[in-house]
């Protein structure tokens, strides 16, 4: 049993413990366990970031179900590492954020939060396609309840929409996974990659495109890529603060992670083939998300649409197939997780005070809550990509990668950056500046110690990731280089050797039956 197994299963254990013990303890228990999990997970960083190559570490590879051969295969590399850490750090913060806000069915709430943590960590470490699918679907259930029980007025509509959108996409992915199994005779992802690169498993163009699309659509719904994004604003607006944070910061990353981890290495040709269309959709998403954010009267919806825009950058970066673009994309996943997470927390705090998310219900908050407005300002600046803060690095790399491929991509995507400054600063101006109305004066008070504690780690990370980039970027770069290599290999292989037979793969299929 490696440290990774422990980090993966601790949240499940915590989930069971919280369910078993009385509700009065749940809150404390959730905070203690999730903080503990975070501390343990730091050990992962020490191991993975310390290792030089792009190889997968902390591997456990055991048989789970013998026939069909399904393996419990988990490992961690530079791509998964930071996403796992992002999940483990956000969970205790989510507990802190919900501390006083959740008063109803407390036990179930914190139990679901930890079950969600279990699911998302599982997604980022699974190296078996079946196992990946299992975790992918498992995350749906706790989020469904988090939105459905503790959400706002239209929560039922939002949560059912969220569930059905994701489910539909992932069922297509399941069909693709099954098809791959019938071709390769295994669900084990590294083995499939090996079969592909050695030419023992060959996917014809007619197979690759539908398979790629099946995977990609499942991921694109989650990202969400324009025009599949419509579930997102609903889910975000209706979710409780912690739900929004986990959704935006971690669950959306499952989609982009999936694209980088699975779509590119396995279906390099199809990915290249579809890249122009996907890039255009990503750019439409960037500009459209920003423009819609600009006119939102509801601040949570504004942040939600800004997510659509930010994640457009990630997708654009991935489909440039350049080292810079891919690095930027992965970095941007983390950045978005931190700054948007912080924004949702801040908006949540405003809601707890004023019981409204309408921007026009605020104004002059800075007068009554100076610390609050400083933290909000830093987060705003991080979100719009001010140099020396985290988003700048990611966006810059993505734009550089895009410019290497086609300057028009970069030019249009740049619009998104400009618009993001507009909507965020305008939001800031309308909410925090000006004269404080009576309602604001009456309801709004400054951050207390608990709230500050929930935000401080994120603010530190914004600065740290903006200045100490190389520490974070190094493991990512190594993995991305390998993924790019695999993508190209696939292409070259297709061009040079058109139809070599794949006898060995077929034998394995027969064996597996």
């Amino acid at each position: 049993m490696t440290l990774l197994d422990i980090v993966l299963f601790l949240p499940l254990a915590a989930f069971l413990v919280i369910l078993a013990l009385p509700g009065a303890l749940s809150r404390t228990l959730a905070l203690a366990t999730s903080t503990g999990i975070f501390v343990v997970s730091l050990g992962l960083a020490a191991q993975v970031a310390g290792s030089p190559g792009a190889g997968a570490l902390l591997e456990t590879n055991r048989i789970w179900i013998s026939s069909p051969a399904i393996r419990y295969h988990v490992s961690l590399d530079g791509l998964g590492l930071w996403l796992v850490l992002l999940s483990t750090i956000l969970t205790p913060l989510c507990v802190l954020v919900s501390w006083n806000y959740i008063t109803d069915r407390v036990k179930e709430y914190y139990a679901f939060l930890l079950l969600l943590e279990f699911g998302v960590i599982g997604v980022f470490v699974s190296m078996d396609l079946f196992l990946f699918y299992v975790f992918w679907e498992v995350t749906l259930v706790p989020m469904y309840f988090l939105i459905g029980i503790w959400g706002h007025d239209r929560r039922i509509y939002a949560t059912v929409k969220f569930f059905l959108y994701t489910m539909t996409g992932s069922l297509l992915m399941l069909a693709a996974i099954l098809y791959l199994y019938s071709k390769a005779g295994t669900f084990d992802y590294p083995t499939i990659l090996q079969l592909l690169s050695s030419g023992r498993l060959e996917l014809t163009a007619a197979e690759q495109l539908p398979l790629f699309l099946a995977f990609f659509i499942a991921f694109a719904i989650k990202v969400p890529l324009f025009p599949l994004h419509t579930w997102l604003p609903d889910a975000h607006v209706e979710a409780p603060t912690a739900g929004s944070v986990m959704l935006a910061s971690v669950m959306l990353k499952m989609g982009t992670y999936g694209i980088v981890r699975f779509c590119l290495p396995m279906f390099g040709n199809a990915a290249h083939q579809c890249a122009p269309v996907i890039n255009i959709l990503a750019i439409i998403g960037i500009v459209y998300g920003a423009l819609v954010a600009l006119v939102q009267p509801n601040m949570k919806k504004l942040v939600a649409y800004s997510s659509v825009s930010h994640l457009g950058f990630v997708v654009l970066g991935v489909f440039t197939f350049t080292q810079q673009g891919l690095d930027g994309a992965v970095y941007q996943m983390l950045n978005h997780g931190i700054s948007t997470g912080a924004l949702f927390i801040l908006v949540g705090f405003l809601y707890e005070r004023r019981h409204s998310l309408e921007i026009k219900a605020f104004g002059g908050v800075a007068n009554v809550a100076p610390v609050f407005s400083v933290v909000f300002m830093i987060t705003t600046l991080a979100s719009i990509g001010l140099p020396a803060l985290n988003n700048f690095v990611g966006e810059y790399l993505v734009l550089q990668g895009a410019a290497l491929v086609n300057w028009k991509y970069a030019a249009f995507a740049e619009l998104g950056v400009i618009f993001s400054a507009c909507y965020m600063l305008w939001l800031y101006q309308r909410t925090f500046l000006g004269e404080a109305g009576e309602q604001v004066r009456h309801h709004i008070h400054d951050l207390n110690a608990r709230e500050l504690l929930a935000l401080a780690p994120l603010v530190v990370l914004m600065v740290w990731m903006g200045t100490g980039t190389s520490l974070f970027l190094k493991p990512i770069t190594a993995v991305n280089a390998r993924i790019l290599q695999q993508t190209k290999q696939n292409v070259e292989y297709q061009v040079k050797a058109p139809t070599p037979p794949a006898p060995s793969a077929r034998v394995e299929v027969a064996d597996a039956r």
Partner: protein
Amino acid sequence: MPVNFVPPATGEYIRVLPEIVLTIGGTILMVAEGLAGERHRRGMAPLALVFLLLAMGGAVLAGMNPGPAFTNLLIVDGYATFFRLLVLVVGVLSVLISASYLTRENADSADYYSLILFSLCGQSLLASANELIMVFIGLEISSIATYVLAGFLRKDKRNNEAAIKYFLLGSFATAFLLYGVGWIYGVTGTTNLQEIHRFLSSPESTYSPLMVGACAAMLFVGFAFKISAAPFQAWAPDVYQGAPAPVSAFMSAAPKAAAFAVFLRVYSVAFSGLTESWQPILWASALATMVIGNFAALRQNNIKRMLAYSSVANAGYVLVAVVAHTETGVAAAMFYLAAYALMNLGAFAIVTHYVNKGERYVGIDDMAGFARKQPFAAALFTWFLLSMIGVPLTGGFFGKFYIFKSAIDSNLIWLTVLGLLNSAVAAYYYLRVIVVMYFHEPGEAALETASIPGGIRLALIGSAIGVFILGVFPSAVLEFANRSAMLVR
């Protein structure tokens, strides 16, 4: 007595041990009904359980002595044992959930349990039938007892409607089956499944393919009715809705599993040579069953009716495995039927309790706020519903996964994609129940609901554990299914 009569060996009696136990048990219960006073009628459920457990023991014993019995009329193999045990488990769960229901409706009676035992006897026979006349007999024993069960509360109008509908349509379908059997005998001169296969695949025999096709089609009508496959599914919602809730639970699992057992056996043994001609028909039927079941379930407000349509849709998934026509397909169908039986029984167990006296609260909206009043039961119900949706780590997911895997292996890509999309549609109506239970404030029904009686509680926990094991550690059952599927040839 014919000259060539050979008295059956002892081993052959062991192979029909479950049927013997069930017949004796059913008869004893029926007699006990008359002998016992009014007060003792309640004590009949434990007695029925004892017989069921004995029958299970018998099935295991029979399974350890595999082979044909009674001049090849029956065959006991792993496949038969699997289905015998499956229907007996369904029987146990049904008895567990029935006891408190009957007491609530003032209908305590030993007849009820003896009918269940007789019905199971027919199904157990079906699982091991190796010959078409036995198929017919098994089907009739099973069906007639079930017709009576469907109308068990005879003062209830809905019960009467269900029973008469089920009886008329069921008899009509069985007539088709019998007619098909007759034709088959006319063409091939035998009713034994292996013999039919031998005749049809032998190059020397001459027969009209059209005739054989017609026979296969008529048998299909009979079976499709029993498994509620399109286009013969129309009875299912009406009957499930009208019948007493625990009977609906029983009907949607046991007779269906047994009918699938024999359906699979007939088509993969007797007609395995004609795959190409019946496969397209089953393909269309499987798709239609899934689509009709799922889309009709979307519009239901009665929870029993919704579960009925869901059971139609589930039959469609199993049909996909039949269309695959491989050993993996047969194993997948077996696995799925087991998972389906458990999750469906679990769901119906909750419904049985929740509808309250006189089945007053059958609307989905009546479930409002159930989770507040009974968090544990609601959590288990959610678990069963998630299994029906096909969320991983549940038996329902793994069953569905295995079915569609077998379909992909047989290159049925379109059927797989359409089937999977269907299950996304299904997610909507199952989620609706969870929404009502968890996200709405308690209504009248939730406030009136009493704590869950012991029998139902036991059935719930048992099936929940079963669904969990099938979802997380499916290897044992899967291997057994795979091994037995290989023998069905």
